């Protein structure tokens, strides 16, 4: 009763420096710790093997240190790891794999399938048919050969490939490496483990994209899981169970704030995210100064709680109310300036006017605070 984990698209070495010197490395590190968790899970579930369907590494020229760290992260599972080169880490003449081999970093229980030859794991009851990418992009179906590849009858026929299933996935997929949607049937596969699509997705009974175990982009498509696959015997239907693995959830929200309750709802929503996440928030609409202050406070709290909080407020307009103005004790010509800035948000460069208004409000508040302190 073979059981294995299907995962893919680890993209080790991916950089998140745009999130700053603190969050960037943390997100990169998260990918490695997720691998460690996969190892732990494999051990815990006592699976027979872990199949990684390509893009283990994000690029060919990843530093030696990162390469070593990846293979060290596998230590938690002593069974066979089966790795396939994907488009990011294709088995080129000189590749990250040849380097890893030179570095002597690949443990013995890791099988890197650089050539299109079956790997027989008799002990585990698995015959793995790999379709490694030996170029960054191919336009032929590398899984063709599966159809005619004989394997011992008592072993499960497991296909391992990296690319896009033709006619199923959207056009904006990562690579043009095509895969026949009927491949599992044609090649009499018990299971076809696919990589490249970062979300978790079932193609048919026997064909799955596991998605990346650690989410790496704002796309809510089931990323952050591995597949726990169990197949009773050759020909039996696989039982596939997604297991959440990711450390950070990536959330991308777009909200429109129109009335005061919209803000309340947003703040409520932010407060309710439990796990530390990577959040991209795009807001548009209108706020008065008091609302803006509340929003900033809520964002400040969220920023502290979550790994990353990116806010896009260019679509927001600050519309101070009478109450705002009274609260800021705006008098004289300052009042006129406030009014003018409010009106300018309707014209060109509204974000400049908004920011000017926010600065003014900030200065006024400071003044007030200073005045109050005396």
């Amino acid at each position, binding site marked *: 009763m073979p059981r294995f984990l299907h995962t893919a698209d680890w993209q080790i070495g991916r*950089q998140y420096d745009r999130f700053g010197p603190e969050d960037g490395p943390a997100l990169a590190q998260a990918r490695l710790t997720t691998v460690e968790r996969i190892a732990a899970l494999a051990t815990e579930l006592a699976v027979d093997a872990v199949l990684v369907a390509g893009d283990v590494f994000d690029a060919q020229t990843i530093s030696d240190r990162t390469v070593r760290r990846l293979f060290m992260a596998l230590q938690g599972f002593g069974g066979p790891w089966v790795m396939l080169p994907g488009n990011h880490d294709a088995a080129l003449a000189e590749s990250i794999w040849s380097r890893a081999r030179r570095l002597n970093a690949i443990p013995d229980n890791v099988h890197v399938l650089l050539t299109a030859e079956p790997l027989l794991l008799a002990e585990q009851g698995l015959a793995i048919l790999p379709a490694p990418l*030996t170029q960054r992009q191919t336009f032929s179906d590398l899984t063709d050969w599966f159809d005619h590849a004989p394997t011992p009858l008592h072993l499960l026929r497991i296909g391992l490939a990296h690319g896009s299933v033709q006619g199923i996935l959207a056009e904006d997929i990562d690579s043009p490496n095509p895969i026949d949607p009927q491949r599992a049937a044609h090649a009499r596969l018990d299971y076809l483990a696919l990589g490249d699509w970062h979300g978790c997705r079932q193609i048919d009974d026997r064909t799955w994209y596991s998605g990346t175990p650690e989410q790496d982009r704002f796309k809510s498509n089931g990323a952050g899981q591995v597949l726990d696959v169990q197949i009773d015997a050759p020909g039996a239907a696989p039982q596939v169970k997604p297991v959440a693995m990711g450390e950070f959830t990536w959330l991308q929200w777009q909200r429109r704030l129109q009335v005061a309750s919209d803000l309340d709802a947003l703040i409520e929503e932010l407060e309710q995210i439990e796990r530390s996440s990577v959040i991209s928030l795009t807001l548009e609409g209108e706020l008065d100064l008091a609302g803006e202050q509340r929003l900033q406070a809520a964002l400040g709290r969220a920023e502290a709680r979550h790994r990353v909080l990116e806010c896009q407020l260019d679509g927001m307009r600050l519309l101070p109310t009478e109450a705002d103005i009274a609260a800021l004790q705006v008098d004289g010509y*300052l009042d006129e300036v406030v009014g003018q800035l409010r009106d300018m948000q309707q014209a060109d460069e509204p974000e400049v006017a908004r920011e000017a208004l926010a*600065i003014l409000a900030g200065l006024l508040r400071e003044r007030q605070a200073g005045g109050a302190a005396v």
Partner: protein
Amino acid sequence: MKLEQLRISQFRQFREPLVIDGFGPGLNLICGPNESGKSTLVRAIRAAFFERHSSGTLTDLRPWGDSGAAPEVELRFSHADRQWQLSKRFLQRKRCDLTIDGQRFNGDEAEEQLAAMLGFNVASRGASKAEHWGIPGLLWIEQGMGQELDEAVSHAGDHLKSVLGASLGEVTSSGGDEVIRQARVQLDELLTGTGKPRGDYKLSGERIAVLDEELQALDQRIGAYRQQVDRLGELRQQQAGDEADKPWEALRVQQQEAERKYAEVQRQTEEQQRDLQALEQVRGHRQIVLEQLRSHEEQAKDLQQRQGKCQQLQQQLEQLAGQQAELVAAQDAALAAYQQAQQQERQARQWARRETLERERQRLLKQQQQLQLSLEQARLLQNELVTQQQALAAVRINDQQLAQLEQLHNQLRELDIRQQSIATRLRYELLPGQQLSLDQQQLSGSDELLLLQETQLDIAGIGKLIITPGGQDLATLARKTEHARDQLQVLLEQLRVSSLDEAREQLQLAKAQNAAIHANRKLLASHAPAGIEALEQDAAGVVARLAELEQELGALEMPVGEAAVATAAVDTGLAEQILQQAAAQLQQREAATGKHNEQLIGLRQNLASAEEECRLLQTRLDDPQHMQQQRKLNDNLLTLRAEEARLEQQSNERAARIASARPDILQQDIQRYRSSAAQLEQGFNQRREELLALQGRLQGEGADGLEEHRASLAAELESEHRRYHQLDRRARALALLHNLLSEKRQQLTRRLQAPLQKHLDHYLQLLFPQATLEVDENLMPGRLLRHGQDASEFATLSFGAREQMGLISRLAYADLLREAGRPTLIILDDALVHSDQPRLGQMKRILFDAAQRHQVLLFSCHPDKWRDMGVPVRELEGLKTAAIEG
């Protein structure tokens, strides 16, 4: 605001309580000499309002040396229809009590009320300073400070502005300037004065440029790296293919095949070479045989020819022998003719000689006669010439001598004439018969004599008369005459003539003789040019020659008979000609005979040798060995022709085969296959090395983590872009905000200034008609524009003018404040001390006018100066006395 009562005690010089009341609503003049306490009163009012009652540092308020004193000030005043009473005690039992219409305030609260009412700030600790004083600082002018306005205005600024704003019925900004300043500060952090990025903003822009550049460089490296990886893959594939196929080996096989073919062609070519050589030899042999056969034929033909020649020669010989007799006869005839001609020619020559001799003899005879004649003539002439020359020799005179003679003669004649002209004339006419003796010479008749010398005239009978011619000259002349006569005589004798005429005649004669001699000589020369003797010799010669001729003629034999006649007829030239013709004829005949003989001899020799040759040839041809040789040669010829044909055919066929095999192309094939194989193999080896090198390079580069680094850079760049964008937006927002604020503030200020300007103008017109005083945004007086004068800044005005402008400005501020319902108490401590009389006069009008609206306390030590202000002057000393009395 109207001050009603002031009470102080234990306050500096006022140790005792002093109460001043009865302040009027307008101007109040309080005068006193120096040190009388005017400034102390002002200080007391200030202390009452400004100083915190709780302050412990105000020891200067105590009377000097009284450390236990508690300075105290009490003020009563009305403002806004309310009664205010303020009581403040310092240093001891400190307290502050304020009652406003019965409502009481104590301590700090009371002080806050006061500050708000008057518009100043309470010092947080210690003594109150100028910056706290606000509006009172402006309206209460301390001694000697009337000209200083800047500080006071700036400290009162906010109060003034808010008051002014209120007076316009608008809400001004209470903290606008601070906001503007803050905005400016924040803007300055991002932009320079000229609007260029600075600080973080600038660094961010620069960082983006740096990152962009790095990223590009890295992209290039990654691109190159990827290309090299691809190249590595290609090379590996090629190498593996080559290793499996070893394509150069196939080429080598092809090369060997080509080489084999080429060797075959080579072999055939050699055979061909041999065959061609053999063919050449056969052809040579055949040629030789042919030549030998031809020589045999030629020998037979030669014999025939030679035999024919022999016959011909024989015929010729016979012909020549026939001609010989004829030739001999002809020669003999010619010899006879020659001998006859020779005889005739000799005779003709003798006859011609005789003729010549005879002609010469005739000529010589004639010459002899002529010579004889000439000789006779010449001898005659010779004799005549001798005679003539003798006659000529007798004559001695010549032309020169004749000329000398004639000269002497003429001289004599002249002297004679002169003698006669000066001589004494003696004329005598004697009677017939009478005589006279003159120097013994008898004279008779009549005549005339010239007496040239003393002459004695003897008259018979009478005696004698001696006449002496007068004068010296006569004697001289006589002497000269004598001398000349002597000379003449000598010459005549010399010439052997008696007179001049004879001399002439002789000379003429000599000349004639000379001419005759000359003619005769010429004649003689024609007869005997070489002299008579030569002529004689010639004649003798002719005679001798004649004798010779006679002898020769006699010797010549004369022909006789007909021969003589014939001979005489034949000319010698003709004879010679005939002889020559005969000789030539003879010679010709002899030559013909000789030639004929030679021909004969030659022919005979030729014939002999020809006959010999014919014999030899015949012998050879008849030799049996020769016959056999000829047969053999003919056989050889046949054999050789057959061999030649065989070889030609064989080599032609082989040549076609060789040509079709194209050995040149075969050689090229070999070359081509060989170098292709070598290149492939070399390429293989080179590729192996390139592979190793490329692999090494890529291994090095791969470890650098290029793409990781690139991702990191790209992320940083993106983040920096965001940051730059934020900074940029912030900068623009700040600029916008600052501009808006400044603009608004400026607009407002201009509106605020309007009422102040109005009040300023009101006072200024009293001092300088038609002048204006500008006010800047801080409400400070700026430029003063006076009619007909240059504008001048407040700060540059004279001390007195500044004091005057300062007071005017303060009064204008007071008017503003009053319009806004704010308290306006004006205190002047010794004001306008620097103004001249006319200005002071005007300022008094201004002050008086202001006092219609404001309470003014004026302290002065010059009471007489202010007597015309329409109010009583209160003497401080008097007030003190009253207090003591009270």
